[in-house]
């Protein structure tokens, strides 16, 4: 398959004008997770999560409009156990 064919196929799929066989091909490709073998440590995962969350916070600015309620002192102590 050439890049031009893929471009036409994905374009038709996005517009909802693709043939059933094309739709099935793209959906099967999307469902195929055979090569999913990312080995990332927990620390790296946490860094990625924090980075994306910070971007979400920056774009939606929700901490400014909906600040978090401070947990009472007794809840902080019970959370330790």
């Amino acid at each position, binding site marked *: 398959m050439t890049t031009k064919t*893929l471009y036409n196929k994905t374009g038709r799929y996005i517009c909802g004008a693709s043939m059933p066989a094309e739709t099935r091909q793209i959906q099967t490709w999307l469902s195929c997770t055979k090569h999913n073998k990312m080995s990332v440590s927990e620390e790296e995962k946490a860094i990625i999560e924090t980075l994306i969350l910070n971007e979400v916070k920056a774009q939606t600015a929700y901490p400014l409009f909906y600040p978090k309620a401070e947990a009472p002192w007794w809840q902080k102590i019970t959370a330790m156990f």
Partner: protein
Amino acid sequence: MSRNFTPDEILIDQLVLNDTDAFEELYHRHCYPLYSYCVDKLNSPADARSIVRDVFIRLWEKRQTLPVGFSVSLYLYQEIRKAVVLCVNQKLEEDKDLFTIQTQIIPGFAVVNLQQAKKPVRKSSSEIRYINSLTPNRANKNYWWNYNPSGITIKDIKMLLQKAFNLL
């Protein structure tokens, strides 16, 4: 993340009340699997990051109009799949990362590679045995034989009956 597990449905209900903690809990649950899926499909961590970010921004912005019985995981995966196709299309339109597309993405559309998706997921025999022991399955006779949620044994019942007869 909270210490007690809260189902997604309850977190969605809290999301409607602008609960940022609920949003972050949902985010931490689903973020990394979505991110790794995007990286797997696009071979581009930067694109994966922007897709995941946009999907969660849309979820936050749509929180007031979420329908009843809304499934977060289903919604997120549908959105991610759409965004992945859109991203591939945009890259092709702008002639960006053509080498990656030619070497990494296009081979994924080959029939041999697509057939992998149709194969059933194989589970180890120990996993299957564990699942069978949990679910009420007619084929699994041991489940019904050993089903005893109250913890009362036949010995206990015999003892109680004996005491009752003695009293009578």
